[in-house]
């Protein structure tokens, strides 16, 4: 998301277990990991990376609640105040008939809200250039990345020896 470029030193692992071991080793060596990229969600990776529990679901609930109240409120207003019409001899304020639409709008708002939130967090907008370290991390490689933009040679050397120690298949530098 950051506009200025970042120089990244990253290692690619062949297996998620190797990656998890590497993250644990980095933790015990007090190395500051920039990020980890995997082709699929790896169970148990979040706690060792020290990530907090996601708050996305709170937003999901909020969007859903907005959708539900919007749908129910709008229908109640339209059918009792704005333009009351009798349908099938039912009362104007026919709650059972409103429920399917309330449900649909709850899902719609939650889905759209979450999609847009997700795009915002990931910095994905039309025209954005993808900052991918390596195409293979969306397929079969597990990547551990260090930010070396301002690192001196000894730190970089420390990272490189870390990668060879933890069995990285490949180590590369890329500016993104």
């Amino acid at each position: 998301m950051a506009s200025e470029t970042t120089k990244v030193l990253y290692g690619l692992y062949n297996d998620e277990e190797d990656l998890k071991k590497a993250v644990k080793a980095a933790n015990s060596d007090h190395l500051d990991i920039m990020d980890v990229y995997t082709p699929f969600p790896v169970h148990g990776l979040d706690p060792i990376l020290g990530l907090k529990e996601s708050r996305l679901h709170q937003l999901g609930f909020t969007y859903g609640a907005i959708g539900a109240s919007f749908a129910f409120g709008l229908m109640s207003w339209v059918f009792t105040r704005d333009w009351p019409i009798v349908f099938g001899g039912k009362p104007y304020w026919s709650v059972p008939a409103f429920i399917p639409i309330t449900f649909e709008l709850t899902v719609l708002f939650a889905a759209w809200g979450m999609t847009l939130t997700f795009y915002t967090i990931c910095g994905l907008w039309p025209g954005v250039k993808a900052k991918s370290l390596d195409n293979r991390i969306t397929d079969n490689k597990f990547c551990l990345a260090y930010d070396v933009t301002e690192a001196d040679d000894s730190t970089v050397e420390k990272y490189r020896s870390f990668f060879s120690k933890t069995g990285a298949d490949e180590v590369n530098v890329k500016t993104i």
Partner: protein
Amino acid sequence: MNITNTQFEFAGKTKTVLFAGMALGLVCLVLTFFGDDAYHTRFWSNFLHNSVYFTGISFMALAFMCAQITAFGGWMTAIKRIWESMAMFIVVGIVLMTVMVISVWGHLNHLYHWNTPGIAEVGSATYDRIIAGKVGFLNPVWYTVGTVGFLALWYFWAVKIRNNSIEQDTNETPSLDYYKVQRRWAASFLPIIGFLVCVFIWQSVMSIDSHWYSTMFAWYSMISMLLGALSMTVILIIYLKSIGYLEYVSRDHLHDVGKFLFGISVFWTYLWFDQFMLIWYANNGEETVYFKERMNFYPVLFWGNLLLNFVTPFFILMRNDTKRKFGTMFFVACIVFFGHWWDFFYMIKPGARSAAHHATEMQAGHSTSHSAAPAHDTHAAPAATEHATDAAGHTADTHAAHSEGATHAATDTTHSATHDATTAAATTAEKAAPHAEEAHGADAHGEHGAVDPSKAFKIGYSFPGLEELGIMIGFLSLFLFFFFKNLEKASLIPWRDPYLEESLHHETGALIESEQDDKAGHDHH
């Protein structure tokens, strides 16, 4: 991972408690047998209610396990023996439903209106045109097949699957032979239970309201039974853990059962609402009467059902972490278990009460007025009721014309049963008065006096009384007794199941901050 205590032992103390529970249930059953109407409706409806619910739990536990096996669901292998043992209760269900079948053949009760002698014979005092069109299915033979017959069939599958699973433990070298056989039995059970459970429910529960039918009913009750089975699973897992078994069953397993409990509760609500809304929207008298009667005269049952089975599990289990907490899950499982027991109470009691009331009236000699308007009594279409209400203030002559028009289903019998037009008018007027109260009594317009006593609030019908709770405890004890007896017969772990390793290392990947400290400590082992 600590895999010890894999052999369950049914402690003598637990047995004593369960025997006490069964004794309590028996005492309560006997109590409800006396002091009720001549047909012992409270006793029989309680017996049917609990038999259907607990038997339903056993075969739906088997159905759920079969669905998991068919779908390669490996996570549940560690708790598989619980479902296998629950399924063995079907054999008790066969005995319980045999009692119901005997009562139907011997006319020992009057839960089922279709079981009235002469109901399908034109000209008979008890003739009912609507039911006469259904006797091809609503008859004692089909009742026997649909309840005991199908249960026996399901039990056959239960035994096959269970025996195969236990024999698998003795498998010396790892092989997929037993597993492949098990998959075949599991997959073939799914269509068998899926289709036949509908017939079981139509016969045992829906036919109580013989005039009424709903195409959603079977699915909705089936899911009710499934939720009973799932909540029972949660209760049993937590209980077995608390006494030192199933140490390898983790929060992650509980989380997955919790997701099913949550998701299927929402599905239950969906089916419940589907059934309700279609009937509400179409507003056909013969369909609407089912809900109208329940909403007007049994509001506690009606709304309590939604509160227990939708609101509680939905809002409590919505969060990620509540599905992983043993205390919360135990609480919700108890509510849902009781809630679906309540759901069956709601399905069975009002209809059984009406059917018995109708039969009592017939016995008391009101048969002329009844045969004049069979569709008009317990299952009156609201349209007919409203017409009768409108006519209440008119002269007897106008009134008769109105009512005859409204109860068109029965006009032909009106003519044959009453030769004198004046008598007919008087009879219908007599009938119209209580119906007018029915229609308006609940709306506090009861200008004609109190509500029909056959629909008034009564413990045991409008609300479960202490006896009902005692009977539930009795049946629950019986269920648990058989469950523990079967659990004892085999190891708690299916040692040679190919999915065992997957199950023992099952992780949902949920990240719950409050659990992180425990987990960090756990990793060091």
